[in-house]
């Protein structure tokens, strides 16, 4: 008896829809993190003040950096969670093979990055509103963005989040492949910090890596860099997962 060929893409789509439902807990944690992020940001990030006999002024600087930092950690950790055994085995409850499972995961993480990016924009708006309502102030000056800048910012954040999910996915797969990476990876990370501090008085390795993305002024180049890096990370993760058992 020969089988009707099953289309990979068809199964990936089904798995993606399945994951949207079954991984919804991730979006609850996203909401919680953003609320915490907003609360942290309400303290302001800097400011100053001054005055004379007759008047005084105070200023505070608010930004969504906290929220963004939380989001990046969320993206990284969510991707790691997706690679854990329990989540991987969930896929095989129904129809799956490794490739379909990996592709559906990447699709899902992409989707999660988009949700993360859009909700970040909303959260930073809520931050502005909260400051307006909660703090006693007379002026609020905020940067006005054109639609294009706004769109670029949104896509930029989504790309950053996607990059972090790709990193998390690779780290997660490394750990699944061999548990020694649980120790090895943090050791390498902190070790590189300490060693570069020891020799050069300033930690540079991580910053240098970060600069590749952060200092990029051309949006198109940034896009290409992120896509390239994520492809490499996801690709290596898929390669690594090839030696894992399908399901016990």
């Amino acid at each position: 008896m020969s089988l009707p060929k099953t289309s990979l893409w068809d199964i990936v789509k089904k798995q993606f829809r399945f994951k949207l439902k079954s991984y919804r807990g991730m979006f609850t944690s996203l909401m919680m993190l953003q609320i915490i992020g907003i609360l942290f940001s309400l303290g302001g990030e800097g400011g100053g003040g001054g005055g004379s006999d007759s008047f005084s002024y105070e200023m505070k600087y608010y930004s969504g950096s906290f929220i963004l930092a939380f989001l990046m950690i969320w993206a990284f950790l969510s991707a790691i969670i997706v690679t854990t055994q329990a989540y991987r085995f969930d896929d095989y409850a129904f129809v799956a093979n490794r490739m379909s499972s990996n592709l559906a995961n990447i699709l899902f993480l992409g989707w999660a990055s988009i949700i993360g990016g859009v909700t970040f924009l909303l959260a930073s708006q809520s931050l502005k509103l909260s400051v307006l309502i909660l703090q006693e102030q007379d002026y609020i000056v905020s940067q006005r963005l054109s639609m294009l800048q706004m769109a670029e910012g949104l896509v930029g954040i989504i790309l950053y989040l996607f990059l972090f999910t790709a990193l998390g996915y690779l780290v997660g797969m490394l750990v699944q492949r061999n548990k020694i990476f649980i120790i090895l990876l943090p050791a390498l990370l902190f070790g590189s910090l300490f060693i570069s501090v020891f020799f050069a008085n300033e930690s540079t390795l991580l910053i240098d890596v970060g600069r590749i993305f952060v200092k990029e002024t051309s949006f198109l180049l940034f896009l290409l860099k992120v896509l390239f890096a994520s492809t490499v990370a996801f690709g290596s993760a898929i390669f690594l997962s090839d030696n894992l058992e399908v399901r016990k």
Partner: protein
Amino acid sequence: MLKFNKVTKIYGKKKVLDELTFSIGENKITGLIGRNGAGKTTMLQIAAGFIRESSGEVRVFGESPFNNLSVSANMVMVDNDMNLPASLSLDELLDSAASFYPNWDMKLARNLMSYFRLDLKQHHTGLSKGMKNTFHAILGLASRCPLTIFDEPTNGMDAGVRKDFYRALLKDYLANPRTIIISSHHLNEVEDLLEDILVLKDGRQLLHMTVEDMREYAVIVSGRDDMLNDWLSGHELFHRNSTDFGKSYALIRNNLSEGQITSAMNKGLKFSTISNEDLCLYLTSQEKGGIDDVFTKN
């Protein structure tokens, strides 16, 4: 349909499957019988494509099942520790299953759910062991896959649910024939619905025959020790046991001629039949003397 050719699976140093060779035809219900550790689950997991064989050749629908999407789409394996996402209710799990399996029968699934009193709003993690396995069994039945594997599906179910489940299985099989493999410790529970029986021992195939053939396969001879000993030489002996008062019995291969039977009758030996369940127990027992020997050695 399902073919194993000299399949070996090694975990560490232990050979769980040892050059296992058999094939199962299309649209048959086969029972997989064996003691704990005989390699039943390993064999099923290899057939389902979850784990890879160490050596040998496995063919399901003519393809190697490991990590194979087409095989996965046409196969469902129901076992005790199915991984199902904790975040979904049973209802959502049924919907998800329906989206994956083209032959899924939602009406059957829902009817079985209400018959077995499973609450659709409940979550998988909140179910008792028996309820969980009932739910898994419903998934297995309703997905109507060309290859359906049940690995000890009735663990934890109460007697009533077991009976109902097997009856549902048989009814659905008759209406929609497909290849079904059931592994079980309790042969007499499943015997009525099986066509073939495959018995594993130590990772090898011990027997593979129809249920009817198996009933004729062996016979018990009993009588006085000395008479039995004389008569037994030349027969294929599966099991031998002495009871008190100089009487003993033996389980032998049933390939006797008329002459052999009459000569045995003349010596005062008696013949009796053995149930398939007991036969499997004797055939797969590890120790020659059975559990009694453990105590007599002390």
